């Protein structure tokens, strides 16, 4: 067998999770085509996700390139860091598929659920590729794959005008952003002559000062990434799409595709711009582009604008959209430290963000199922009508604010410590002030739940046992991880191996 072919077959072993996702995607498609039985679709999907989860765990320790070229660098980097985020993506996918079974909003489209799960699997595939991609071609394809699937999913409720509007805005904004990113990539290709991030690293070592072309290309490329993680000023689509899309998809976009975008950003910075690491884990950067300054500005803008915009929202989904923008800001702040320690902050934050944000969205789904509204004023007095929902929502919101003893506090703590340690005190203080602002609108929801009197006579609302269990499964870890988070930290630290320097 010739050498490249041998590489190719070796690499197939490394992309087992992706292969499994493709396999199940096809399976769901065929099943839907042949049997037309909606009932079993979610369970097939869940099975597929669990199988993939096992495959990822099985290859967790791998640290090499897949699809190597002759220059020893490959198209994909399979490393524990990527596996970590793949696990996060899978977990959120599992939770979102469970959401989809519950959500009454999707009932109007139950006959098309085959497409729905196929598209979700398409998104998962795209996100997996985003997480592992170390080549600009693959990055672009992965980003587009995620985008194309999510455009359709955002407009999945065809007859709902809000949903269709969301998808139109999404595709126009997404198309332009990724177009700009592609243009940036094309220039970068012109500068370096390669599409591989790791090859670029050695070529960029020649730059000893900032370079106007690099600034241009990096900001253009960041337009595409920033749009995925909804960083200000690339966030304008976020509130509208999050509000219009089905809640399940909103929840999914706010966690999974954000995670994939963050990994893409980290990999781009880490493998392309870091020349070496010092003993404390701080990265020495190639001075072609001032990533730190750039990220600080973007992160301050993102958290501040996200939080302040959330202040006056009356639609809870939209408020959570802005809050997710603010959280992206906190995560960007941790990346801006440009050290391994900052990455610890990012990763801890993401696990916790997954729990608390999906929890909050679950509550929104449950309430929407029962009273068919997402408007804040319709939430009046709900805390007494659905005690468990009220308590769980309180936990999620307090966790999102970042007050002990909830997990959200731990997430913020690690980001904060990383900032303080890197002597980026201004950013740390801005982050604290932002948390204070965020307290206001999170507590506003609680005020409606508990203090405002409902307008009409109401009765208690019963929840099914499985729903209660599901709520608890998301709520209890928010407390437990607030008190005992050593396992998270262990997991994060063992996962902190990024291919390359």
């Amino acid at each position, binding site marked *: 067998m010739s050498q490249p072919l041998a590489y190719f077959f070796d690499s197939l072993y490394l992309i087992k999770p992706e292969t499994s996702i493709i396999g199940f995607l096809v399976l769901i498609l065929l099943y839907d085509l042949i049997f037309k039985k909606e009932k079993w679709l979610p369970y097939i999907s869940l099975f597929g996700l669990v199988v993939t989860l096992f495959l990822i765990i099985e290859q967790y320790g791998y640290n090499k390139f897949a699809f190597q070229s002759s220059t020893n660098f490959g198209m994909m980097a399979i490393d524990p860091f990527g596996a970590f985020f793949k696990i996060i993506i899978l977990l959120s996918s599992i939770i979102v598929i469970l959401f989809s079974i519950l959500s009454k909003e999707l009932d109007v489209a139950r006959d098309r659920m085959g497409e729905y799960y196929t598209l979700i699997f398409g998104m998962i595939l795209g996100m997996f590729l985003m997480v592992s991609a170390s080549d600009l071609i693959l990055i672009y394809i992965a980003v587009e794959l995620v985008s194309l699937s999510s455009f359709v999913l955002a407009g999945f409720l065809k007859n709902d005008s809000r949903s269709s509007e969301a998808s139109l805005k999404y595709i126009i904004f997404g198309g332009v952003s990724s177009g700009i990113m592609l243009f940036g990539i*094309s220039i970068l290709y012109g500068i370096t002559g390669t599409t591989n991030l790791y090859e670029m690293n050695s070529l960029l070592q020649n730059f000893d000062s900032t370079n106007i072309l690099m600034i241009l290309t990096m900001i253009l490329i960041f337009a595409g990434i920033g749009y995925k993680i909804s960083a200000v000023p690339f966030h304008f689509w976020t509130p509208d799409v999050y509000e219009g899309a089905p809640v399940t998809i909103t929840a999914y976009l706010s966690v999974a595709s954000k995670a994939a975008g963050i990994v893409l950003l980290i990999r781009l910075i880490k493998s392309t711009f870091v020349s070496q690491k010092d003993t404390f884990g701080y990265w020495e950067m190639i001075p072609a582009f001032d990533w730190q300054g750039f990220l600080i500005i973007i992160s301050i803008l993102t958290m501040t604008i996200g939080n302040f915009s959330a202040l006056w929202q009356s639609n809870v989904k939209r408020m959570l959209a802005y809050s997710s923008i603010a959280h992206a800001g906190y995560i960007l702040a941790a990346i801006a430290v440009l050290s391994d320690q900052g990455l610890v902050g990012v990763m801890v934050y993401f696990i916790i963000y997954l729990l608390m944000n999906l929890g909050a969205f679950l509550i929104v789904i449950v309430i929407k199922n029962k009273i068919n509204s997402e408007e804040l004023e319709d939430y009046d007095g709900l805390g007494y009508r659905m005690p468990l929902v009220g308590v769980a929502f309180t936990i999620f919101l307090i966790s999102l604010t970042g007050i002990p003893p909830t997990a959200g506090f731990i997430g913020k703590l690690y980001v904060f410590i990383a900032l303080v340690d890197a002597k980026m005190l201004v950013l740390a203080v801005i982050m604290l002030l932002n948390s204070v602002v965020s307290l206001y609108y999170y507590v506003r929801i609680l005020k409606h739940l508990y203090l405002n009197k409902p307008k009409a006579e109401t009765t208690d609302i019963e929840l099914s046992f499985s729903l209660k269990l599901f709520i608890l499964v998301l709520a209890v870890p928010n407390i437990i991880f607030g008190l005992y988070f050593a396992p998270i930290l262990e997991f994060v630290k063992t996962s902190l191996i990024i291919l390359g320097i």
Partner: protein
Amino acid sequence: MMEVGLQHFLVVSAILFSLGIFGVVTRKNAVMVLMGIELILNAANINFIAFAKYGNFGFDGQLIALFVIVLAAAEAAIALAIVLNIYKNFATVNVDEINKLKE
């Protein structure tokens, strides 16, 4: 007669890119907006091919261009489906008037 070189291609692509943005921002009809996006993508394509040819970077550039064309087609297909759906719901494809979700 001047030789056609890299710079010419780059200028054309820059103009195409700007026209694309201009189209996206100014056209009222959603289909025209989508065509603007196509222009942006093709501007990038020209860049790729031009760099590949004049920089002697191998075939990577052409390869990317092919991928981009495929993706652009997929995107256009989806976008048109969405526009169709918009027309069913709003009875218009004027991007300006589709602004129920705001603030």
